[in-house]
């Protein structure tokens, strides 16, 4: 695993392509799974992941090291997903099926899902969360990120993130207990 400071140094020394390739290799998996948890389908997560790295490439020269490279990348990715979901919500306004139903259906339609009944139930409950709360839940529950990092990514404070996570956690837990 390469240190972020090495990637930034390579970029500043003019080795931009090499720096960018290292960045993609270092973060693509984590960012992909974060996006997949937020939007449900592989195609949408793939598109958003590419958009994230394209925006990163264009903005890397302006990157200020006050925030870590890792939280900065996650912030770009999360904002891409939230914007996408907002657009989907608007486009779904005149549809017969609800926005949440469409998100839930995306989980299993790609053929790349192999979870059992209870895992599918968990994914469905996650998809019912408000978009930003889903992002927070995904980052803490699946990726085990620190609350202070999640707060930086969502441009909030750790207390609000903790409150949001705890509500989401208990909401999902109660729904699953009711079903099973």
């Amino acid at each position: 695993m390469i240190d972020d400071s090495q990637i930034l140094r390579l970029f500043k020394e003019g080795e931009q392509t090499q720096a960018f390739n290292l960045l993609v290799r270092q973060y693509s998996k984590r960012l992909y799974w974060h996006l997949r948890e937020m939007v449900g389908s592989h195609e949408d997560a793939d598109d958003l992941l590419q958009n994230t790295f394209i925006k990163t490439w264009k903005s890397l020269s302006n990157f200020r090291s006050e925030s870590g490279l890792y939280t900065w990348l996650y912030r770009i990715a999360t904002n891409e997903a939230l914007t996408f979901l907002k657009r989907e919500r608007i486009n779904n306004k005149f549809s017969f099926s609800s926005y949440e139903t469409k998100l839930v259906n995306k989980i299993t339609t790609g053929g790349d899902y192999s979870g059992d009944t209870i895992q599918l139930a968990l994914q469905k409950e996650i998809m019912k969360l408000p978009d930003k709360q889903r992002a927070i839940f995904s980052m803490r529950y699946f990726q085990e990120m620190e609350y202070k990092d999640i707060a930086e990514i969502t441009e909030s404070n750790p207390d609000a993130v903790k409150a949001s996570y705890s509500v989401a956690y208990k909401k999902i837990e109660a729904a699953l207990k009711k079903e099973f």
Partner: protein
Amino acid sequence: MLKDRLDIEKDSFLEKIKEKNFPFHVGEDYFLSLEDRIRERLEVKEPERKVIIFRSLKAYMGLAASFLLIFGIGFGVLKLTTNIEGEKNLADNIELLENHHDEYIDSIDNFFAVNDIMVSEEELSFVEKEIVIENENDEDFDEYIRQVPTLFTHLIAEELSN
């Protein structure tokens, strides 16, 4: 019952699910080919977008100029033909629109903001006062959430009944 098999008396439901294999999969070569695909998009899209944006701007500017001309003619005609009472009504209507403009924009923002909600004021104050002070460490906070069954139950019950 599934409840017994998962032994939730000792462990949280959600923590037990986390121990299972991750249910999503992606092709092995997906991440290997990602760099090339991103590079292709960077090389291809950039020049086209600039031309398209410029052409769109020209069209919109033309449209905006047409609207301004029509509005200007209409306003001029209205000004010449209305009496004092009419002018007063027009001024009132313009003032009404200006006063409610922010409310209209707020209502649009609020529609979208519903899904930007992270936490309500009530939930936040509860966490700040009751939990955070004693559970500053992230792992301690998570353990607290798992152990306290009654946290926010009234809010959750309301949510589930909707």
